[in-house]
Every structure is written in structure tokens, then in C-alpha cells.
């Protein structure tokens, strides 16, 4: 029953990068895996996932009604799985139904949570949504009611996902009661990939031969992902985004955010940023 490893993150925090690594690790291919054929299947919030199992159109349900169904969906799916499966998640860890978590413990093997400096998240998420000005993203990352795919005027291919504020999203997962969690910082994935990815591999009980891990890291380098996207597109690219794999750099916020905007973010999320090593003793950003 405990089959799922949730790959959870706020958007633009390294989740897709890790899935590219994971696919290359699991398949152990001679050439990099096609980015449109990841081994991890659809995101947890895929509407098709739910519609295939409830027997009616989820578009005829309210978002709250769907949230109350989702824990049963994952329990049902976990019962059908023979082996552990990795599922991408952008939802915060919430409790929509009578105190039952959205991602039930009985369906869960473990969770890997990807965290990234919210200053860089802000810039990347802004571009991801087809915007150039970061202020709305800053406000969204502060908003405790922030959602993805929450439009009421049309039907999205994804179910509504409660993100909460950036800080709440992080805490909802890393402090989730009873969950076995491994936290990966984007910056560590970038600066010390072998050590960081190896730790995740051991946590998730994946094939851990050092050469295999090194090859999977090489095959999922940012430059490789970007080249593939340029050559043949990326089906997970959102509608407004020009490219999904845009820069992938640490600290690119310094070129984009004003001093005031950076201060606003550190004021909103300072506590969580300190806890995960994004602010120094003097309160200045580290990356």
C-alpha cells in the first residue's frame, strides 16, 4: 500500500530537473532520456488521473469536492501499484477531508521536498507565467490563499492546487506529521550535485552505483535539458512560457529584483529562509 514517493515543491524549485535525473537513473540509458518521456507519469493534480477513476466528469464538481476525493484517489492508485512510484506534486500538504491529509500516509512511502531560494523562485516563476514584472509574484508568494489552476471560468487539465504562501508551502511539507521527508536544496543540487543527488538516491532506496549516479547527473544537466527543449519542445511547458528551462542559475534575482522587492521577500519569508540557510546572521541573502 505504501507505494508513492511524492516529489513535492513550490513551482520552479528543481522538481523537473530531479525527475530528469531520476528517469536517467532508473532507465540507465546510453543517451539522455527524452525530456518528454519522463518515468514519473503525470503530476498528482492531473485531472485525467481522477476522471479515469471516478466514473464521471470532475469538471462537474467544485474544487473543494474534488479535494475531498483526492486522498481516496491516491489510496486507490497505491493499491494498484506493484512497485514504488514517483509522483510530482505542487500542492501544499493540506488536510481537506475530515483531518485526512491530501496525500494519505497509507499511500506514501516517502517524500522528497525541493526547496529553492525564494528570491530566485520569484524571478523564475514570473517568467514561467509569461510575465516580466515580479511584483505580482511577490504578492502571490505572500498570499496564504494562492492556488494553481484555480480558474473558475474554464476547465484546466489540472485540478486546483492550493499552494498557500511560499513559507507555508515549505512548512506544510517539511513539518508534515508522520511523513518521511528528505529535503533537497536547489542550490546544493547545483553546487554539489554528486553528494546531493546521491543522498536522495539512498533515501529513496534507488540504484546507487556511483558511476550510474554520475551518468544520470550528466544526462540531466541544465544545458542538456535546455538543448532538448530547443530541439523538440517540452510538453510540460505552460501556455505562457517561452521556454521552460530558462536560466537555471543561482542568484539571478540580483539582476532582476529591485532592492525593495528583495527586502519585501526576505521580510515575508525571513524565518523559513533562515531555517534553510538562505539568510545569513545579519539577515542578508546568502545566494
Amino acid at each position, binding site marked *: 500500500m505504501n507505494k508513492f514517493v511524492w516529489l513535492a515543491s513550490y513551482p520552479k524549485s528543481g522538481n523537473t530537473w530531479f525527475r530528469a535525473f531520476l528517469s536517467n537513473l532508473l532507465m540507465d540509458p546510453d543517451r539522455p532520456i527524452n525530456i518528454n518521456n519522463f518515468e514519473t507519469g503525470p503530476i498528482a493534480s492531473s485531472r485525467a488521473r481522477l*476522471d*479515469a477513476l471516478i*466514473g464521471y466528469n470532475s*469538471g462537474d464538481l467544485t474544487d473543494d469536492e474534488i479535494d475531498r476525493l483526492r486522498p481516496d*484517489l491516491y489510496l486507490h492508485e497505491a493499491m494498484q501499484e506493484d512497485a514504488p512510484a514517483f509522483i510530482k506534486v505542487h500542492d501544499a500538504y493540506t488536510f481537506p477531508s475530515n483531518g485526512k491529509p491530501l496525500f494519505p500516509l497509507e499511500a506514501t512511502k516517502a517524500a522528497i521536498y525541493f526547496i529553492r531560494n525564494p528570491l530566485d523562485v520569484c524571478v523564475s516563476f514570473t517568467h514561467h507565467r509569461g510575465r516580466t514584472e515580479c511584483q505580482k509574484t511577490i504578492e502571490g508568494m505572500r498570499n496564504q490563499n494562492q492556488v494553481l489552476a484555480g480558474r473558475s471560468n474554464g476547465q484546466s*487539465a489540472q485540478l486546483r492546487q492550493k499552494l498557500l504562501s511560499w513559507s507555508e508551502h515549505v512548512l506544510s511539507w517539511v513539518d508534515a506529521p508522520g511523513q518521511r521527508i528528505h529535503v533537497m536544496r536547489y542550490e546544493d543540487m547545483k553546487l554539489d550535485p554528486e553528494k546531493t543527488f546521491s543522498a536522495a538516491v539512498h533515501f529513496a532506496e534507488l540504484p546507487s552505483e556511483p558511476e550510474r549516479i554520475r551518468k544520470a547527473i550528466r544526462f540531466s544537466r541544465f544545458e542538456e535539458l535546455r538543448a532538448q527543449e530547443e530541439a523538440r519542445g*517540452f*510538453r510540460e511547458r505552460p501556455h505562457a512560457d517561452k521556454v521552460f528551462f530558462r536560466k537555471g542559475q543561482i542568484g539571478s534575482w540580483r539582476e532582476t529584483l529591485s532592492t525593495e522587492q528583495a527586502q519585501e521577500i526576505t521580510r515575508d519569508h525571513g524565518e523559513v529562509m533562515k531555517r534553510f540557510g538562505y539568510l545569513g546572521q545579519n539577515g542578508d541573502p546568502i545566494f
Partner: protein
Amino acid sequence: MHWHHYQAFGLRIRSCFPLPELLAATGPEFDVEISYDSVSPELPGAVDVGLRYQTAPRRLLIVVEGIARFLVLEGARILIDRCKDAEDNAVRLFLLASVFGGLLLQREELVLRGSAIEVNGQAMVFLGVPGIGKSTLAIAFKKKGYRFLTDEFCVVRTGPEARRMIQAGFPQAKLWPDSLKKLDLLPETLSCVRRGIQKRALPIKEDFTSEPLPIGKVYVLSSRTTNSVSLTTLEGSAAYTVFVGDDNLSPFLKGFGLESHYRQFAMTLALGTPAIVVNRPKNKFNLTEIVDILEADFLK
């Protein structure tokens, strides 16, 4: 009991409560009866148990929390155990969609999820995943003067000279406000399909054809990372997958024991039916452009 008589999908229906979405019928004969009754939350002898449905040969249970439990029997009876606070339109919403779709499958019909219009005496069918624009397209063509045949389901039946015919559904389409705006229709003037859902019920007051029509072409709407609209004709097994892909192979078929029957029927349909994929940009649904391209293709 006072019965209300209707017709849809070539069937005569009698119901113990009004179904204003359907065309009224006269005469006491009926193929399908809809009534209220007590329905158990479990289907005895269920062969397939989904998240909120259970199936066995010629039996289907659908549970919609807070609305009703629906039991469909022998392709001829629908029993509804309605929740105390459920609103009429919410019960009808699920009844006339998946519940009725399950009944049609029990009758061994080929049921495609899509909409259809009439073009020169033939049915042009639009298929695709939920939210892709099937209903929007049907209404866009209706606005151009084409007659509306069905929304939600296209029931395929064998007609004279073994021709594959699309049965008329009922005169209503369901559209989200974003689609209504594309069609220059005001969402505020239409009723929501149920409380809390912004999707609207659009009654088709005229230009509805209630006669079955032979299939002309099947268009599969698809969105991808492309910059322009294009048409791709499907051949051989690719055409077959249109009819038995995940979007059209109902999860109910397994428990009904009808999967192979359905696949066989779909195979014969695929052999004689032109199937065309309509590729459109993921981020842009230019309705006018698609309508123009398809209108030109209708005549080919």
C-alpha cells in the same frame, strides 16, 4: 405515479420527475425508465470497483457524494437514491452525463465522448479531452447556421445499408464562461449547471436536428506546442486509437464485460470513417481560425 415522457439518443424515456433538458415525447411506450428508489452504496457482485463507481455485467452504480447514488440496470432502468439536500439540476447534471452514458454502454452502443453537428446531411463529430473545446466548436458552427446534433455523447448505431449513424442527443450544450465569451454569448444570461460551478447550460432552441445522421468525418481536437492550426489525417491503427483511446474507452466497459465487443465495433467504425486530428497551439484557441479551416475541410 405521474410519468414524464422524453426522447434522446433514439430512445424513449419515461421519468418520474421532469427533465426539461430533453425533447418531450408522446405515447406511453418507453425504452428507459428513470425513478427514485433506495440504492445500496455497494453493488453486490461488482466485477470492477473504481473510486466512485462499481460495475458488473449490465449493472452500474455511481456515487456522487452529496448528490445521489445512481443504479443503472440492464440498459433499461435508472434508480436514483437522492441525497436530502441535493438540488434538482445537480441530480440531472450527473444523470444526463455519465449515468446515461453508462446506460447506453449497457445497451451495447458505441458511445464517443464528443459533440456533433450536421453538414450537408452528414454528422461531423468533434472528439478530444475534456476542456479542449468540443462543445465550443459545435456551438460556433451552430451560430454559422449548421444544425446541432449532440453534445457530451455521440452514440453510433448501424443504420440502413450498414451505414454508421450518429444519434441525436438532446438540445443542450454545456459551456464555461471563457467559451461563451469566445462565442459572444453572455454567461450572465444562462443558468449554472449546478450551484458552485460556473459552467452554463445553453439550451438549443432552434437548429436542433433530432434525426440520426450518417457519419461524415471525425475531428479529434488536440493542443500542443505549435504556433499554428493544422490538420493531420489519421490512417490505419492511428485512426482506431481515436475510438478506443483513453478518452473514449469508458472505465465501465471492463465490468460490463463489453471491452472486446466495443473494440470490435470501434475497429469497423475506424475502417470506414475519415479521422482527422486538429492540432492547435496550446496557449491559443483561435475559434474563428479553426472554424474556417474545418469549414473548408468539410467540403473536401
